[in-house]
């Protein structure tokens, strides 16, 4: 593959810096595609949503069981997901697997800051209250639990307030 795209060019750099603040999923691809290329992520989301519902991961009861150590189910799901992920990333790096467009796969390193502790604890509180992290919230709405739209709007508001206060919060 000799058509590998260049790593970020200069004029997009400030944008990249803002975007990568407090973010895990940073768009690593520098290829420009028409919007309908994004439909493959819609399809990936459909699969993910079905798995979340079928495995009862989106159940408030399953989350309570997890936090009361009353069931192995959630630990099994998250644990085996992580093991699968570790093996996959290891293979991708080892065999230098490229994307379907021939790009090199880039995995940004995470820097530690205190937000991971304070924010992590606050999210944990919210997780036990709503019984849902962001992914399951979307899936719950899909199953017809429409009142969760209120939780989702509130989560968007929470993200917005974080953006507003970001400079004043300890990191």
């Amino acid at each position, binding site marked *: 593959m000799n058509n590998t795209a260049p790593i970020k060019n200069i004029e997009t750099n400030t944008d990249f810096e803002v975007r990568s603040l407090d973010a895990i999923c940073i*768009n690593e691809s520098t290829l420009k595609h028409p919007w309908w290329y994004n439909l493959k992520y819609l399809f990936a989301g459909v699969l*993910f949503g079905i798995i979340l519902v*079928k495995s009862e991961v989106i159940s408030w009861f399953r989350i309570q069981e997890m936090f009361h150590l009353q069931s192995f189910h959630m630990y099994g799901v998250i644990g085996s997901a992580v093991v699968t992920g570790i093996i996959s990333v290891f293979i991708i790096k080892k065999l230098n697997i490229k994307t379907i467009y021939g790009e090199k796969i880039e995995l940004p390193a995470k820097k530690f800051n205190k937000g991971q502790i304070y924010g992590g604890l606050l999210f*944990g509180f919210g997780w036990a209250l709503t*019984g849902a992290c962001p992914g399951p*919230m979307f899936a719950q709405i899909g199953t*017809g639990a429409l009142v969760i739209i209120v939780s989702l709007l509130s989560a968007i508001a*929470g*993200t917005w307030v974080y953006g507003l206060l970001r400079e004043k919060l300890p990191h």
Partner: protein
Amino acid sequence: MLEFLKQPMPWYIAGPLIGLMVPLLLIIGNKTFGISSSLRHICAACIPAKIPFFQYKWKEESWNLFLVAGIVTGGFIAAAFLMNMNAVNINPKLVTELSKYGMDNYQSLVPKQIFNWQALLTARGLIMIVGGGFLVGFGTRYAGGCTSGHAIMGLSNLQWPSLIATMCFMAGGFIMANLILPFILML
């Protein structure tokens, strides 16, 4: 076949399938798996309000919005076509505990006795639905990721800050569920 698909999915099938989202997104477009960023892109798109944190080209991140739209659709498909009507099989200890707070309906994944429109007019409902949602949005962004971004993607890439974040998610959950939630459920 359909009967088989209607069974609840055991952890040893669901977990590896969720883990495979990581290489799937990397290979189809160099995307790192994560969900909570979608909340930030929605802020950047709809209510940026000149806040620097929301000044970036969110359209370049729109793949993440397609992903969450897919999750909503997947939730709908699973609930409409792939569910059996049996109640969620819950540890009897939890059933006994929750019955103290008047909960006896285990038919749906989201308990209707807590999460319903009328509940929004009660203190308990407000704290759990609105307060809980706010903490999820604020906390995940402060932490730089959620269960998908840190616990699954970050740990898959052996990032120790993600391990710290994941341990704090769990610690927060244990504190809330065991020490604080019982008082909220009593309201």
